[in-house]
């Protein structure tokens, strides 16, 4: 029993199968991209982020693309950080202190003491904010999620995932009928 029958399959057939498979996968992926709900009109959001060992409240911040985001910070125990992926933003949050230290990781050395961090959420997708000031044992795992709609990553990856299944299924079934 030579189960895979790869030797018997012609190069042409293989190419056809690969094309079919990729077409289905990318088709479903595109479908996911298209079906992702569009972001509503931008608005202003003021959010107070409370940091504690080892998490943030809110643990997930959901905004829409174009929103003006104003963040205030509170630390409930020790000095924490707020490093937002993809937004070049790092904040150090000393506890029991009215202001925070804000810096751009891309410009090391520059530091600003401010009460509130404001920026426009112009990048869509899923980003994580992480603690950047060693705050205890689980510090490296202290994080929260910043999700900017439309987050196309999820529908696209779900489309691709099921595309792999459907595409594979079609390749197998159609080959049977072909013979």
């Amino acid at each position: 029993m030579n189960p895979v029958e790869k030797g018997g399959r012609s190069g042409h057939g293989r190419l056809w199968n690969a094309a079919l498979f990729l077409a289905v996968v990318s088709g479903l992926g595109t479908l996911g991209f298209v079906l992702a709900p569009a972001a509503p009109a931008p608005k202003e959001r003021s959010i107070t982020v409370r940091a504690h060992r080892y998490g943030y409240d809110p643990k997930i911040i959901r905004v829409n693309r174009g929103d003006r985001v104003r963040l205030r910070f509170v630390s409930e125990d020790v000095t924490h950080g707020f490093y937002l992926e993809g937004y070049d933003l790092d904040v150090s949050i000393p506890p029991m202190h009215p202001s925070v230290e804000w810096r751009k990781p891309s410009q090391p050395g520059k530091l600003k003491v401010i009460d509130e961090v404001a920026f426009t959420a112009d990048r869509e997708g899923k980003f994580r904010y992480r603690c950047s000031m060693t705050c205890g044992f689980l510090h490296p795992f202290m994080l929260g999620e910043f999700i900017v709609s439309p987050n196309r990553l999820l529908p696209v990856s779900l489309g691709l995932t099921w595309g792999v299944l459907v595409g594979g299924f079609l390749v197998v079934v159609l080959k049977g009928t072909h013979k």
Partner: protein
Amino acid sequence: MSQKMAEIVAVFATLIGIGATIFLPFVYQSRHLFRDSDIQVINLTGVNSAGTWTEEEVNGWNYWRRDFAAARPVLNVGRTARFRLKSADVIHTFYAPALGVGPVQVYPGHVVEFEVRPAQRGVFQYYCTTVCGMPHFGMRGEIVVQREGEAVTTGSLPTSGKYWLEPPPPANANLVERGQWLFHQKGCFTCHGPEGRGGVSNWNYVKGTVPALNALAERLMLFDREDVKVIVEQMESGKNLNSLVASPPVARFNVFLAQYRSVRDLIRKGSTPGKKDPHGPVPPLEMPTWDQRLSEVEIDAVIAYLLTLQP
């Protein structure tokens, strides 16, 4: 033959390698530490769980003992001392303004080095000025500077952060009792003195010492003990004092109310102490913001407790 030689080489390499791996780091470290023989090296490690700067070695093995003694380094006039500051857990700030040291932020796992060459004798306070946990407010001590060969001056023992271990008040405690407990447990007394008597010096602060709080009743225009009792009763009953404007329980209630609100605001938002010498160092002790740490009722409890105090 060559196998036998290889075997001998391997055995020697193993023994020498193991010995070197174990001992070389220590050799390197001691050479690194004592590279200048005439300099005194002072290792201080900030430990958040104990609320101390300690001279003891803090490492992976003993960190769990959690009872490091607070440091009381002794320096000599005219001799350079190299401070090596570490943190064993979270961010601390070391500050000894009277000695002209700091404030230096100490990040966990990094070593901050600086040298001090004290010119005069004395006992100098050091602090941690970044809130590093609830033991933080006791995280201070003294640096003694003496002449070479002089007997060590015995001073007040450095505080340690152990006070927060107090048991919580009984469930049926009244407002004043809870306030008293909070005043202690939250570390207020470390700056404002036991029973709010004040007297804790704050370097380069415009008033010299941290304000006493045992005369709060008078500041709030409650000159009569009876008035204090009435107000505390009103607070205890959970009534919003603002709602009492129509039927004031005490004389000059409006003035009291304005003062009361500003005290609450001060507790909530904290304040930065003014400098006596505008070019001098930042005073080490500042009023922290309590709005995230104390609830409205708790702030009232502390105020109620302070109102009952007498100078």
